[in-house]
Structures are given as C-alpha cells and as structure tokens.
C-alpha cells in the first residue's frame, strides 16, 4: 500500500517538485553570488523589524545570510507549502476527485490508507529538505563561500519538522472535513499569520512571550543555524504533528465520505434566497454562457473581483493616507534601508511617495496579483478544458480551435487589464486622499507596464498550455519563469556582474526606467507587448497542430 501510494504521489508531483527545487537552488546560487559582491555592513544598519522578519542577525557573513534567506525563509515556505498541498490532496483531494471510494474499494482500511499517505508525506518532506540542504551546500562549495560553523543540518532538521507540521495540519483538516479548499486555506492562514507574528511580535513590548503560540517560532526561534538543533522545539513540532495525525485518523473514521460532487458551498446556501441569488448571479456571473469568452470570464470572475478589490483597496487606496500619516522617524529609518535589500521588493526610495508605492505595491505585490489572474486564465485556457475532458464536447460545436483560443485570450487580456486598472484607480485615489501629489499620468504609465508584464507571463502559460495541454506544466513553468526573472532582475540591481543579465528579465522593462517618476517608457512597453504578442501568436499553431488530450 505504502509503495503504491508513494509511486502515485511521485508520479503526480515530480514535475512541480522538480521545478520548485530547481528554482530554489537557482535562487540560492544567485543570492550567494550577489551577496559575495556587496558590502554586508549595510545589514548591520538595517531596521530590526526587517532583520527579524527575515530571520537575520545584524552581523552575518555571506554564507549565513544566503542560507538564512534561501533555506530559512523562501525554502521553508516553499517546502511547507509543498507539504500542505500534499496533505490537503491526501484525503480531501482524492474525495473531490472521486477516487477515494475507489482506493477504499481495496481491502484496506481508512486508517491504513491515511497512514500510507502520511508516511508518503514524511518521505517526500525528508527528500525535499535533503535536496534543498544539498543544493545550498553545493552552491556554497561552487562559489567558495564559507559555511564555517553554520549548522545547515540543524536548520534542515528544523525545516523538516516545521514542514511536517503544516503537512499534517492540512491532512487533519482534510480528513475531518473532506474539503480540500478548507485544508489549504487553514494551512496557508496559519503559516502566513505565524510567520509575520514571529517576525514582528518581538518588536512590540510584551510581545516576546506571545510568539510561543505560533508554530513558526519553533522553526527558527532558536536560530538553529547557529545554535544547532533545539530538541525541545523539534519535540513541540513533531508532537503537534503526531497529534494532528492521530486526530486525522479519528476524523476520517467517523464521518461519511463525500462523493465526487461540486459540494454545497456557503455561496450555494445564500443563493437559496431568490433575491440574493439574483444579486450574486450578477456579481459572480454564474451562468454566463452566451459565448466562450464570457463563460471563461464567469469562471474567473470571483478571482478577478478579489484580486481587483485587493489591489484597489489594500495595495492602492489605503496606502496613500497611511503614508501621509507615517511619522518622520519611520521614514528616516527607511532611508537607512539598503537599496540592495529593497531590490527584491522592486526597489524604491521610501522618502518619496513614488518610492513608497514602488516598494509596497508595484515592486512585488501588484505583479503577483496580476500574474495570479493572467497565469490562471492562460494556463487554464486550453489545457484546463483538456484536463477536465470538456474540450472534445466544446469542439463538437462549429467553432474552430483558433476561435476557442482567441476568445479565451480575450478574457485573459481583459482581466489582466482590469486588475491593472484597479491598481491605477487605487493608487491614484490613494495619492489624492493622502495629498501625495503623485503624477496621475505616471501612475497610469506604470500600471500600463504592469499590465503588459503580467500579460507576458500569462501568455507564456497560454502558449505552454496550448502546446502541451497540461495545466500544471503551463502554470508551474510560468510561475517558475516569473520568480526566476524577478530574482534575476532584483539581483542585477545590486550586483554589477549580473547587471548585464537584467536585460533578459521582463521585469527590467517594467520598472527599470522608474516609470512612477519618469513616466511612460514606450520602447519598454513595445518590447513587452511584442514578446506577449509573439507568445500568443505561437499558441495558435501549437494548438491547431496537435492532438487533443483525452486524459490527464
């Protein structure tokens, strides 16, 4: 049983896993190469809050710094995310796919299935941690970076226990509810909240003691990279994992399994009221089936609403007044922040409103939000219909493949543009509300470039989906490319040796010319638009020429 569960899991996940690992390893290599070439003194002068959040100490050398960044924060989150994705897929995912009943048709008890899944989760996490630690040490050796008295192994053990905790948390929620979304949501929520709590609480008076209720504290609270394994903390994480595993067994054994179904969501319950139904129907575009692009739009409309509201309110409007209320000292503190560090967040000068918006919104968050929407639609456009095996039925109608692709592309472009527009509206209003006096045309130019860079990666996902018919490949390659290009561009800012490579990164053409201050850079816009157009253009022959996939 364990062997077959493992085999199945490996088959399902090796692609995503490989991409994640390669990205992390590449990032580690780049970060080390960069930090080798910059003056690390600046870290000593960084505000405590930033150091604390990233789990850094003021007096770090190159090795420590890179390992802390790559393994301690990015790596820890990626591996924890892989663990909880797996945990959520274990029971709840199979229920949703309708395959759990099939699995249990074999003479194996629910408990047996769950334990096999749990063991497979443990093994996967072990391999991931080992691979990450290995890659980190290899990068250090390659670049001749001293890892001195760093306890990479100890950090690895902590990373393992930490990831396991999130994996079992998702498994637990999934086993009790059979709801994959809930399992993922709870795990992500706990991880993000505890990551920030552990980073920021110590800065608040009396907050020190509170960090103990947050799981992330037991991961790096004891600074395992310096102090070795804190067995007490490991015990807490593994103990909690064991409790969650036990709880998962109990939960799974006592409830009815769900069939393959769409399930009754809270939305469905609200919709039993006819008035509410009408309203929600209009908002969520439930049954907009008058054309392919409109149907696609209605599938992603909820995502668009959330994304647009988020960039408009949180990333745009609220920040304006907030900036104007920020005390001088805070802004002065911002002055001390090294541009090198800020490069990862898109760079920017905190002493101006433009710089502030660049760091907070345009540098990282806004592109992420636009790309979530464009990549989701791009990857799902062709490949999604094939994975769900609805493409045959759709193409039984008198519509050409090109038209299907074209209409879905329209939705992607439209939605990407709408998120960009929401960003523009939010930032422009925020600037007015906060009396920041930013140039509206410059904001518009930046948002136009934002839309273009988002569409570029969406078009990449579209092209890969059109060529392969595989949603996951399309999505992960596009995400991997975006992360890599972002890091490449950020590191080019701080490392002269890498500056030449910046021109390969689409992000360079997005903020490289500082559009918030300098306005529209037409040649950059043209370049981004051209690459996007080429990617969309090649999607058509790629899709027209191949066989439609029948199964996933």
């Amino acid at each position: 049983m364990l062997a077959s569960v493992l085999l199945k899991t490996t088959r399902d996940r090796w692609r995503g896993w490989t991409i994640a690992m390669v990205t992390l390893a590449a990032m580690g290599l780049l970060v080390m190469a960069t930090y080798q070439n910059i003056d690390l003194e600046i870290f000593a002068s960084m505000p405590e809050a930033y150091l604390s959040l990233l789990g850094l100490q003021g007096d770090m050398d190159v090795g420590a710094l890179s390992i802390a960044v790559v393994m301690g924060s990015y790596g820890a989150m990626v591996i924890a995310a892989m663990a909880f994705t797996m945990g959520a897929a274990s029971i709840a995912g199979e229920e949703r796919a309708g395959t759990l009943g099939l699995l249990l048709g074999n003479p194996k008890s629910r408990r047996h299935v769950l334990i096999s899944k749990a063991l497979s989760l443990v093994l996967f996490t072990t391999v991931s941690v080992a691979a990450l630690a290995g890659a980190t040490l290899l990068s250090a050796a390659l670049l001749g970076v001293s890892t001195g008295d760093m306890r990479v192994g100890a950090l690895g053990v902590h990373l393992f226990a930490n990831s396991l905790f999130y994996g079992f948390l998702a498994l637990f929620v999934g086993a009790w509810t059979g709801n994959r979304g809930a399992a993922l949501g709870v795990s992500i929520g706990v991880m993000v909240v505890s990551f920030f709590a552990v980073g920021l609480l110590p800065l608040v008076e009396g907050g020190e003691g509170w960090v103990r209720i947050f799981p992330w504290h037991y991961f790096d609270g004891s600074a395992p990279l310096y102090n070795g394994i804190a067995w007490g903390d490991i015990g807490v994480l593994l103990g909690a994992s064991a409790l969650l595993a036990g709880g998962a067994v109990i939960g799974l054994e006592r409830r009815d399994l769900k069939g393959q179904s769409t399930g009754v969501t809270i939305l469905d319950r609200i919709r039993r009221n006819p008035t509410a139904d009408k309203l929600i129907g209009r908002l969520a575009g439930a049954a907009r089936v008058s054309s392919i692009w409109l149907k696609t739009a209605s599938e992603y409309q909820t995502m668009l609403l959330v994304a647009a509201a988020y960039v408009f309110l949180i990333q745009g409007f609220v920040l304006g007044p907030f900036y104007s209320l920020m005390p001088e000292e805070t802004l002065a503190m911002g002055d001390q922040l090294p541009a090198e560090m800020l490069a990862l967040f898109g760079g920017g000068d905190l002493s101006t409103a433009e710089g502030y918006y660049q760091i907070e919104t345009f540098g990282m968050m806004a592109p992420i939000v636009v790309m979530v929407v464009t990549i989701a639609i791009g990857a799902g456009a062709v490949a999604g219909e094939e994975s769900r095996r609805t493409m045959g039925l759709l193409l039984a109608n008198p519509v050409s493949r090109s038209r299907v692709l074209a209409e879905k592309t329209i939705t992607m472009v439209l939605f990407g543009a709408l998120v960009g527009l929401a960003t523009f509206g939010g930032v422009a209003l925020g600037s007015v509300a906060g009396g920041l006096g930013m140039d509206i045309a410059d904001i518009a130019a930046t948002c136009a470039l934002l839309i273009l860079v988002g569409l570029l990666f969406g078009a990449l996902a579209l092209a890969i989906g059109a060529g392969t018919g595989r949603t996951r490949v399309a999505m992960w390659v596009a995400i991997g490319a975006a992360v890599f290009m972002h890091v490449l561009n950020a590191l080019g800012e701080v490392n002269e040796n890498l500056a030449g490579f910046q021109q390969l990164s689409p992000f360079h053409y997005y903020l490289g010319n500082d559009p918030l201050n300098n306005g529209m850079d037409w040649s950059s816009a043209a370049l981004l638009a051209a690459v996007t157009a080429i990617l969309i253009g090649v999607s058509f022959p790629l899709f027209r020429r191949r066989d439609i996939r029948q199964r996933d």
Partner: protein
Amino acid sequence: MSGIAIQTRGLTKHYGSVEALVDLDLDIHAGEVFGFLGPNGAGKTTTIRTLMDEIRATRGTASILGKDTHKDSVAIRRDLGYLPGDLAMYPNLTGKDTITYFANLRSGVDWEFVDALAERLTADLSRKVGDLSSGNRQKVGLIQAFMNKPEVIIMDEPSAGLDPLVQRELQKMMREVAGEGRTVFLSSHTLSEVQRVADRVGIIRHGKLIALETVQALRAKAMRQVELELDTPADASVFEAVDGVRDVRAQNNHVLMTFGGDMGALLKAAEGRYSIVDLSTHAADLEEIFLTYYEDEEVAG
C-alpha cells in the same frame, strides 16, 4: 440511402509505435444507423476522435457529408451532433446552462425540442451537472447531441450508464433519426444494443476492421449451432474437415458444432460415415458471431 454520410480511406493513427487504427476503409450511408463494435481499446474511440478532428490521422483521409474532416471540420460540425465517450461536462453549470452554452455556439436551438428530448429521456436539466449521477449526466450529453437535428450524429458508447428503459428510448430516437434520412454512427461493445438498433455493423479489433456486414447478413450467413445425433459414436475430425465448421464437441453419438457454411456439404460429410438419427439447428446470436470473428482474427493474426 442516398449518398455517403461518412467515408474513410486508409485511415491510420499511430501513437508512437502503437498502431491504434490501421487502414480503415468505411462507407456509412446516409439514413442508416451504423454500429461500430469492438472490445475496449480496439480503436473505436480513436476512429471517432479522428472523425471529430480531435486527433489527426497519421495517414489516410476521412470525410463527413463530403467534406474533409480536418480541413472543413468547422463546417462539418454545423451539421453534426457528437457525444464523446466517458463524458465530462462543466460541473458547475446546470444541464440547462450547458445546453444554452452549446446552443449559443451554434446560433440557437429549438427549446421545445430540447424539452421534448428531456422528457423522453427523463432528464433533469435544472441541476448542476456535477451533482448528477453518470447516467443522468449522459442524458444531458445525449440531448446536446440530438438537439440540433443534425444530419449526422456520432456517439461513443451512448448507452453507458443508462437504465434499460432509457436505453430503449434512445434506440427509438436513433431509429427515428434514420427514418428521417439522417445518419447515426455509434460505437458500442454491447451487441444486443447494436443488434436492436443498427442497420449495419463494423467490427474492429486491434485497430483493424475485421468485418463489415448488415445485421441481417451477419445473422443469415450466420453461424448456427448444429447438433447431430448419429447411429454410432461420432468422430470429431470428420466434421472438422468440413468448411465453415468450428468448435466441434463430440460426445458418444452426439456431435455439437458451430457452423457457418453450406448445410449440404456438412450433411454429405456426415452421411459418408454415419446415418443421421436427428438434426437440430438454431441461429447463433451476435455474441457468438462476435467471438467467432475474434477467433478468426486470432488464428489469422
């Protein structure tokens, strides 16, 4: 029977080194119900998906209503209804939404006709497709295949998941379509279904068409079970030597065989050695014919 509705010539599809379909030559006449029979993995779905231009032939050509299935695929689909095998639809749409979606891609549909179809098949179009059982989902698929009164309807295992009453209704619907001079092409591995509904049958195995007959001819030419009672104990080899005889079982004075040749030859062979006390024969049903063709293929291949 005016003209050819579906035609394939040398239609071949390879997946890597796997020959899923080999040199298929078919002529389906307008106004007939054609049953495409074969076990799982024989190449039925590959044929259908090639006709639908979902996959592209390695070589050979196919046409529907005189138009090339690849070059004119959009034009063909204006006059075509299709039900894929192993049907999947949009789980979050209701049956009605699904029908509306496809209707919009075809510039409209006759809702009265849709409602009539839904009634005949006892389909519930108000529920989300994802919440339907596979049989009830299949009904929605069938409605969208029939709803435009297309010239040609292609269905891959249409009765999958349907209860016997609905299956019967579906067979009636297919006959009605043929009665109006339109064409139905269905694949199946259930012979009884095809036997009841089809005019002609093609049998496919390992990607090769091994028989193409009218249902009547198939039955007539037909294998039958022959049982002879003789005056002395029977020797199986005497009968095995006769053309068209297979599967001889001799037991004492009785001999039982499956026979598909000239009865005179069989009787002559028997009379040379024995005197016949009694003779009985009955027509084999398609199941037996089916197996017979397979065995043939196995011996030949």
